[in-house]
């Protein structure tokens, strides 16, 4: 089993979700994160005081899936999350040893 972690622009969530569903992904977990990278933040001024906000709001998606589905899912995310502008985000893939569905106790690929 594999785990995909993808950092994307927030307003792309709906599109990515649909793209993933289209390739058979049935579950995912989303976290609000702040990203720091090449994309520049903005400056806020409150009366005299200036703040540069380097950290931009992003979403992190976590998807656990079978090895076979990996490529399709990665491609689905790549396409649907892309705007072509800096800050589109990353996809990270790692391997997973086990997955368990709490409700049923099922394990492995059946669990995801």
């Amino acid at each position, binding site marked *: 089993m594999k785990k995909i972690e993808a950092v994307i622009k927030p*307003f792309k969530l*709906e599109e990515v979700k649909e793209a993933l569903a289209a390739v058979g992904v049935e579950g995912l977990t989303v976290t609000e994160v*702040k990203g720091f990278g090449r994309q520049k933040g*903005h*400056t*806020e*001024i*409150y009366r005299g005081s200036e703040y540069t*906000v380097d*950290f931009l709001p992003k979403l992190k998606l976590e998807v656990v899936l079978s090895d076979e589905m990996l490529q399709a899912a990665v491609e689905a995310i790549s396409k649907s999350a892309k705007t072509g502008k800096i800050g589109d985000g990353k996809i990270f893939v790692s391997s997973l040893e086990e997955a368990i569905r709490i409700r049923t106790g099922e394990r492995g690929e059946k669990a995801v």
Partner: protein
Amino acid sequence: MNTWMKLGGLVTLAIALLTGPLVAQEAAGPTLEQRIAGVEAYVNNVDPAGSKVVGIPGPGHNAWIMASAALVLFMTLPGLALFYGGLVRQKNVLSVLAQCLGIAGAVTILWFLCGYSLVFGTGFNSPWLGGIEKLFFKGVGPAPNTTYCYWVSENVFAMFQLMFAIITPALIIGAIAERMKFSALMAFVIAWMFVVYFPLAHMVWGGTGLMNGVWNADAKIPAIDFAGGTVVHMSSGWSALILCLILGPRLGFRKEAMPPHSMVLCMAGTGMLWFGWYGFNAGSALAADGIAATAFTTTTLCTATASFTWAMIEYIVRQKASVLGFCSGAVGGLVVITPAAGFVDAGAAMLMGVAAGAVPFFACTALKKALHYDDALDTFGVHAVGGTLGALLTGVFANPATNPNLVSDAYAAKNGLKALAESGTVWVPQLQAIGITLVLAIVGTTVIALVIKAIIGLRPTEEDEVQGLDLANHGEEGYILAIK
């Protein structure tokens, strides 16, 4: 000295004794009777002419209108700002607040420069526009302007009316929220005040106004509008529809979810609007008299009933009464009763409350869904529909027993309102007033919006709209919680 002479002397003496003090008083001013009549006039809110308390504000009335003016300001800042601000997405909340604040500032400056004069002046002796005799608040001081009220300082009256001039364009924000450039909105509002608000307010409330049935003996259209059904709600609501059509829908409209980011804020704003609206409606009696009392009462009854009605319809339709339903109904009720507040009785207010809960409900759900315009926060559904409904129902329910001004000899008898009121056909001039308001709002808004679109553009860049107007236009964020 003979008896006659003596008698003559006595008569003289008697007369002197009798009239002496009176004569002395006359030299010094009014008689005791006139003086008493003066203070009675204060209690009764009528003209104290000839008494010793002329040109002076009456404490109870002045206190009420100062309180009312403050309440109407409170409706916009922070009432409406929070009501609307809660309904937008988090990334645009400040843009709504900034628009309300910007409008308050700009309109106040206009009002001082010329707005007040153009609306409440009478120098042009015109049904369409006031005059220029009060530019820069010339002569606008603490003495009452008796064309409008006997006991409220003219400057307080001017401030009270200013608050109406502020909230009216601020209502428009609801329809165009989340997608109009700040600069474009400000330009639009400034132009709109001249093209739509100032003329319309004069027509309806100006001493020489075209549709001022209650106070202008020469009104061609003897319509009535207690606190601004046409001037405030119809004008803003219909303009909002047009502007939102010209502007186009928000990016992602009908694709993404755009739920209110804080119903708590929205509800807090609703409470403030309701509270402040007592100044709006009961203050529009321009006195703390029996008409104010009636306006206070009908406002309460209609609002609470409308709020409950809207939510109960929701409960029937989908088993859930929502906070937004209660709030929308309350605002709907407030809008509908506005033109009627001082003209109708409690029973009529209850009926209007039911209508105010039901009709805008369908406008904001079925109608909007059917027609696909993006009236973001339902300014059209609530204010235009509600305002129009209210203006019409005012004609249906207006009741001389409740408000004798409907049949006053000084004005209503002369311009025909009296006859209409007695025959129960006040809805006729009301329809005319509705028509004029519609045309002015629609044409005025179309022209202004297209001109501004051509010159500076109406919408932010897509990027700005996606990022949110708070950061893009104002360089701030609504909330900075935790890590940052």
